[in-house]
């Protein structure tokens, strides 16, 4: 009877941890798919699309996650096949640095102007 109880507890623990890890993988998969552009659709992510292309990408991402690949490596794989365009969130490189730095520069410029104005009114 005692052994049976131990078995049941072990079974529940294993099942619970497995479902937790599946849930985690699903969350990661959805996060990645929402950040991948469907290249043959207009304004849709792979997550939203039902196209053949999106279907294949979903399978590939699922497979890569099961193989234990990290999120960044999956993006790297897709970038290697289709270029930077496939990822919604662009990486900071020589082609995208203006995109990343311009808002920061404008923010600093605005801050500087405001500071000067405030000093002037005081």
């Amino acid at each position, binding site marked *: 009877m005692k052994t049976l109880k131990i078995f049941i507890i072990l079974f529940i623990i294993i099942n619970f941890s497995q479902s937790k890890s599946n849930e985690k993988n699903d969350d990661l998969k959805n996060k990645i798919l929402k950040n991948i552009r469907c290249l043959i659709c207009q304004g849709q992510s792979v997550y939203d699309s039902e196209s053949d292309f999106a279907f294949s990408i979903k*399978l590939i991402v699922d497979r890569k996650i099961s193989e234990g690949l990290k999120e960044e490596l999956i993006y790297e794989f897709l970038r290697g*096949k*289709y270029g930077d365009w496939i990822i919604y969130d662009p990486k900071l490189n020589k082609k995208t640095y203006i995109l990343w730095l311009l808002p920061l520069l404008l923010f600093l410029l605005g801050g500087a102007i405001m500071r000067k104005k405030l000093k002037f009114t005081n």
Partner: protein
Amino acid sequence: MKNKINLFIIIFFLGFCFVIFYKGLNNSSIYTPKNINKKNIPIFEAKDLNSSAYLNSKKIFQEDSFYIVNIWASWCAPCRAEHPLLMELSKNQSVKVIGLNYRDNLNNAKKFINELGNPYFQSIIDSDGTLSVEFGAYGVPETFIIDKNKMIIKKITGPINEKIVEEIKLIIK
């Protein structure tokens, strides 16, 4: 003096925005896929369309020759249109045409080949489209030229035409 600096900053900012938007106007709004040139062929294993035996990429691309990988499907109308050109290319001794059947009904695929002729040195199946992703394809039809070093040197998105066939012939010469 201060007013002049402010005016200069505003004019500079507006000028900068104008240049960015003006340049943007000249950009095409149609996304053209980037040609991923000089890439190694993917390592894969796939089923043969006729025998259902598994073949690996090493075996498929084992000969010292140029290869053309053509992604096709029986349900794809442009594939039907480009088929006679593939038949023409398959007669060329210095190139081997590999057919990658994309998400298709196998019976329909076989019917398509029987009806229009078989230009393929080897026909493999990509039932879920993942092998096409490994090649960097978007859909069907798509054609990849592979050189003797087993590198993808050209990618053609959409059906091939007479002009592209001439280009291919020049490459494999």
